[in-house]
């Protein structure tokens, strides 16, 4: 039987400790690889959610947990309800201003822009389109294609 050699033709001596280390490394690597892939799939799956709403959405804010819709005379926009400051969910509001109760940021519901800090970034806008075939508004929890992420 031939002994294992390296490229300098020197014999590779595989001690028991090294063997265990290699096996441990392979196990850790596979664990991390599986973790990465499973998590990535999960994240992707969550982002693919799609929600439908009938045409007669009322003017102003309609609140739906993860997002809210803001209807003006001519359009409907969807924004995430996650505060861009530190991730809290902003509370419901009856006016056009949304308040985050965690640290007091305020947002303009029509544009998602922050009106009062600490938040400085606008609310994330979601893709919201009208499906003329079904007469429904479709909201996808993704940034609209024509918007910067």
């Amino acid at each position, binding site marked *: 039987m031939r002994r294992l050699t390296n490229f300098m033709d020197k014999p590779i001596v595989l001690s028991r400790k090294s063997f265990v280390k290699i096996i441990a490394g392979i196990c850790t690597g596979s664990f991390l690889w599986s*973790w*990465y892939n499973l*998590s*990535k799939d*999960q*994240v992707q799956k*969550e982002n693919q959610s799609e929600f439908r709403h009938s045409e*007669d959405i*009322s*003017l*102003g*804010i309609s609140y739906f947990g*993860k997002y809210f819709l803001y*209807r003006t*005379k001519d359009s409907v926009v969807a924004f995430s309800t*996650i505060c861009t*400051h*530190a*991730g*809290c*969910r*902003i*509370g*419901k*509001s*009856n*006016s*056009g201003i949304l*308040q*985050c*109760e*965690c*640290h*007091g940021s305020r947002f303009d519901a029509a544009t998602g822009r922050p009106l009062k*800090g*600490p*938040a*400085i970034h606008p609310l994330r806008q979601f893709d919201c389109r009208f499906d003329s075939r079904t007469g429904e508004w479709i909201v996808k929890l993704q940034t609209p294609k024509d918007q910067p992420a």
Partner: protein
Amino acid sequence: MEFRRIKKIIQFDTAGWIAISSMLLCGLSGFLLAIPYDNSRAYESILEMLLFNPAGNLVRNFHYWSSQLFFISILIHLYDHFSKSTESNIKNYRTWLILCISLVFLGYEMLSGFILKGDGAGLQAERIFASLLESIPVAGKILVSAFAGREDHWQMVYVQHLATGTIILFIGTYEHVKNIWPKLKSIVIVFAGLLLISLFFRAPLGFTGSNQITGPWFFLGIQELLHWTSEPRYLLLLFFVSFFLLIFLPKLGIKGIKILKRMFFAGGILYLGLTLLVFFFRGNDWQWKNSSEVGSISEAAFIYDPVDFSLPKSMLVLSDKVKTEGCLVCHSAMKGLSDSHQPASTGCFACHRGDPFSSDKLKAHKNMILVPGNFSNVRQTCGTQNCHREISERILSSLMNTAGGIVRTDRKVFGEAISQKDSDQVENIGHSAADNHLRNLCAGCHLGIEKRETGNATWLDRGGGCNACHLQYNPGAISSLKKMRSKDPLMTAEIHPAIDIQVSNDRCKSCHSRSGRISLSYEGWNEINLKPSDLSDSVHFKILPDDRVVEFVQDDVHHQKGMNCIDCHGSYETMGDGQHPLHEEDAVKVQCIDCHPGNIPETFMLGNLPDRESQMIAGLRKYRPDTRVVLTADGNRPLVNTLVDSLNRIFLTNKLTGEIQESKHISPACYKGKGHQRLACESCHTAWVPQCIGCHNSYEKSTIGIDMLTGKPTSGSWIEYAGKNFGEPPTLGVKVDGRKQIVPAMPGMILTIDKETFAKGKGSCFLRLFAPASGHTTQRIGRSCKSCHNDPLAIGYGRGVLKFKAPGSIGKWTFEPRFAQNGNDQLPEDAWTGFLQEAKAPWSTRTGLRPFTVGEQRRILEVGSCLTCHEDKSRVMELALEDFQQALNKRCKFCLKQQ
């Protein structure tokens, strides 16, 4: 000797071993807790433990308190090591590394424990944690999915809390001490102490609907730092820098270690300071707490709630349909509430507070709010973020709460300074002559007066905040109330008074039957100066519950059609629009022309209501979103109970009965010709207004009065002596408000005020002030021409005989007053202005309202002179209405000229 023994007991072991004891106990209790805890319905399962499972409750308390002890002991242990420099005993760098990692997992265990409660604060903490993790470059998203899991879904957090975190902490401990078995004595003392605390103090639990993050206490400092920075990733950077400095601490020289430890110490002190700052000074929405806010933004550290082993043995499970509150264990069958306030969806706590996590009656009812609608409670009840926050904010500046119009008018009449701001609020009034006058006679009529008793408001009850209008006891609720008062033990399936938007006219009456008395007038009743004992006829007269006598004159045409106050006056008029109106006419936007326009009405699609509150109301009333409704000309407010059809006909839905009636467009006669273009609709269509003359107000030092604001008796009181009352057509005047308009007016205050007797007053004064009349006695057919042009009361002279005498070809008007002249201004008692005289200011309770000038009086009388011969509807008068000058030019030789 004694002291030493006590000290010995207290210092039974080092912080390190106490930490290990508590860690073991925490692990064990966590294992037990996993049996009743269900991470797929985390909140409900904890609530079930609190309510029905005393053993589970005890284990949960124990787990919580042991974790707290573990955390604090570790901090003390760290401090001990660092202060004595004994951390250098850890020679093996691998052990140091594992300990550093264990510290991170200690933080994670504490935070994940807080998250796993599943309440609103836990959810928000999870979101913050996830967002911080996510901002880590490259690995952020994956770390989130591993350690924070999906939102509203605690499986990953639970696994990491239960397994990973626990294993790492045990490994860290073993690496550190090579032993995890403390002395038996230590573990017994720690166990006994924790058991004692757990028996009496509940582990916290918040509410599911709340978006406010209230803790945990060790997270408050981070929260404050987050509040200061717009970029939370800096905080993460700070964490990583500190972590790496800690990791490399043993590698530094002695000096470096010393500096670093000092930095950690200073950081710790700073963090503690921040935590205390938040605990004591932060309020709602992370603003500095105002004086009216009580409690802390942090969840209470110690909630005294002894575990009750006498609770039912059988494990009850809360129905998923039922709001997760302990109150519903007894009260889920409560009937009587409208759909929007059903206990199954709203619970009881949202309105009545108390302790929703206890099924013990006494504990559950502790600190309950009996009358949630009182404005002193409203921020905790009706006006919370998830309920009617915006209404509760705007109603505070509404006139029904501030009574600002009354305060300003009264102060003006007394010659005291008035402001245009909030200081003219009835709740802020002081003790000047005017303010005491208000306290004795007027201050009871505003919503801020607290309702203190359960039961329907009676005629004499005023105020009560939201309940003043929205709480209705039907007979079932009244009999339930009787039972409750009699302490009947069979109380569970009872009837709650309705909380709804069906506000009947009766709710308005207790306040609006006074002063302008519009509630009485609307139903046709005029208050008169008779005593109940003087009455012989019960058809035309009525005795009010407060013994005032009223006489029937004529009710409003809208009342005849069955309409209610709320059919015209909607939410923004009654509860304010957040502005600060000076007087009632600034707050009321609805006008006759909105429902009775001359041409095509302005409309609005109901589905496009801009604010959620109006949408909710329209939804509750089941109005269709594709309904075209009327938009008010003043203020552009949609009248939600109207409907405009394709022919532009307007229909009005009665809000209480649902009956629909057509609302007719105005007659062309109303806008024909130039003659009456400046006339407000009310000038012709107000049938009558209550008028009283000859009032006298004096301060009687020896009379015991009542301070209506505080409800306390006062020694000395303002007393009002009423003069004569009439229910007759109004006087007309001119409202100058950009343009001139002829409007009805009524005596607002024709009175003498005897300020001399009031210690701070400056003497007696006489005033003849008329006020804008909002009659609420609308008649379909307008007044006749003569009733204005030939009537001395309408023109402002008061009652009497007005005659056009014609000794030759020049006619002359004469007036004989019915009432004697008042010595103060030489005018008849009921006049607003002298016959063909200019009036002397002040003449009105409002700026912008005045009586007719001499020129205007002459012009009115000139038409009146024609009417002495020509009938109202004659061709001549029709022509005069269209073009008076042309009519004058056509006068014949028989026509008299006015002098």
